[in-house]
């Protein structure tokens, strides 16, 4: 093979290898720390349920109130892991493009894992409440009576968006400076509110049961979630593809 052909083949393989490596390192980091988070949440939920049960029963459930904090936790992980992993990824011979691809795939994968865990936990909670004889309710989400698939899909989209928004925050400061970076935070906040509204969860929209629930609103909500992931992915790509590493002037 000619040198030029050799280089071309090398580039193709290198991109594939480094995308997979970025995806693995980010996914593993988020899943390991996320497992601790969910362990704590489960323990806390059980303790709260036990205490509430002791004093006269629970209204609804406990897990639904943790969904708001789970996404902000993943937002923080996105912020920290993207910031700390990029320099090593570039030093190991990766490109920004492969990092962005790995980050997006990882956010969707971790979102999916979190979505499934959330849906499973809610299902277990519903069954446990029923067995004890308590009234279980789920006021968040697109389906008021609860739906495994829709809850898993909604959380997947929300968590993926939050992880990507977390990753965009420090890159925004680097790109736009102190004032521009602060304005950028406000812009990101709009995306946060949008995805929360779309799937009707979180601290702003998750308190009351969705009024106009139905198949149409569910599709619209999930579509909105997909749009939020797409916008966040585009933002991550634009911000990270031009980012420079700078340690010191030397």
């Amino acid at each position, binding site marked *: 093979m000619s040198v030029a052909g*050799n280089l071309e083949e090398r580039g193709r393989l290198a991109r594939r290898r480094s995308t*997979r490596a970025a995806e693995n390192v980010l996914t593993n980091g988020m899943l390991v720390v996320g497992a601790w988070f969910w362990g704590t949440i489960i323990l806390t939920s059980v303790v709260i349920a036990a205490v509430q049960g002791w004093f006269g029963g629970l209204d609804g459930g406990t897990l639904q109130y943790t969904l708001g904090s789970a996404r902000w936790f993943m937002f923080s992980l996105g912020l920290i892991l993207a910031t700390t992993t990029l320099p090593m990824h570039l*030093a190991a*011979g*990766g*490109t920004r493009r*492969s990092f962005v691809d790995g980050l997006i795939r990882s956010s969707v994968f971790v979102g999916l894992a979190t979505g499934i865990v959330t849906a499973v936990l809610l299902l277990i909670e519903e069954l446990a409440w029923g067995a004890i004889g308590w009234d279980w309710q789920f006021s968040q989400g697109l389906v008021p009576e609860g739906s495994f698939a829709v809850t898993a899909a909604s959380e997947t989209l929300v968590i993926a968006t939050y992880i990507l928004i977390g990753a965009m925050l420090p890159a925004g400061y680097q790109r736009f400076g102190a004032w521009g970076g602060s304005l950028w935070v406000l812009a990101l906040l709009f995306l946060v509110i949008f995805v929360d509204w779309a799937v009707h969860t979180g601290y702003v929209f998750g308190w009351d049961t969705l009024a106009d629930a139905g198949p149409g609103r569910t599709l619209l909500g999930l579509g909105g979630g997909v749009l939020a992931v797409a916008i966040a992915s585009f933002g991550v790509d634009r911000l990270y593809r031009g980012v420079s590493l*700078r*340690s010191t002037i*030397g």
Partner: protein
Amino acid sequence: MSIAPFGAALDSVAVHYPTSWRMTQQGTVARETGGTALDGATCTFPAGAITGLLGRNGAGKTTMIGLLAGFRRPTSGTVRVGPEGYERDPWENPAIVSGVQVVRESGDVMPDEKVGVTLRHYGAVRPEWDADYAERLLDLFEVDTRKNPASLSRGKRSALGATIGLASRAPLTIFDEVYLGMDAPTRYAFYDELLKDYAEHPRTIILSSHLVGETERLFEHVVVVDRGRVLLAEPAEDMRARGTSLTGNATAVDHLAAGHRLLHRQELGPTVMVTVEGSLAEQEAAEAADSGVQVGSVPLQDLFVHLTSTTAQKESER
């Protein structure tokens, strides 16, 4: 798929840093003041050679290395890296950056994960990574793989960086002040290992160093950077021939030095030692022998000090 060693070239490269903000590893935001790091730098790093990249603190070495690795783009000018005749812009070029390994002082490791996790990541990305060799090097440098890099001493972290650099077997491997914190036996073990592996697996190596005296035996080519400009880029032999030391009676030494650019002068009672640029002509050498003046070569370290301090002096005289 083996690939030839990479060469590199910078042509009229300038890098100006604007004042910027960055997120630290602790999650806080830090302000970085701007400045000019490189100002019209032009030089080449020949393929398949060990090049010493020398310069004082803040001379622009790290910025130059960052350009070669595609960590950043120049403000102006061009940067080309690749196999001889196929050099390309490294920025976002996977074929090129996958062949450039930079070991920076910061380490570029996962500080809170076990050493093995970082090495596995490098192994997953680097096409030429040799995991067995990495293991042998960690044994040699006595790095405990069960520990996290954050809990290693500075010297051991540097040894980990050296291991990553050597085991990557990248066509262009760059060590940026990799010896910091290493004790003398580890540094010499690293230099020996570098030469041995370089002989067995020829590639291009750039060694950025302050410890010129210790590393000069490794250099086949030298690039000296000062205040963002390239002072010289040439074979190490040519640089060594740039200076001559004359030691002897003050009058005789001064007479011989008169036709040359004086780089350094030191008086020890009636004896004077000067360093002059270039070598002596045949007639001058004979004259030196007649007048009892000792003629010697100048170590790279001394030449480096003289060259960069002369530039600094000129700048301050402006």
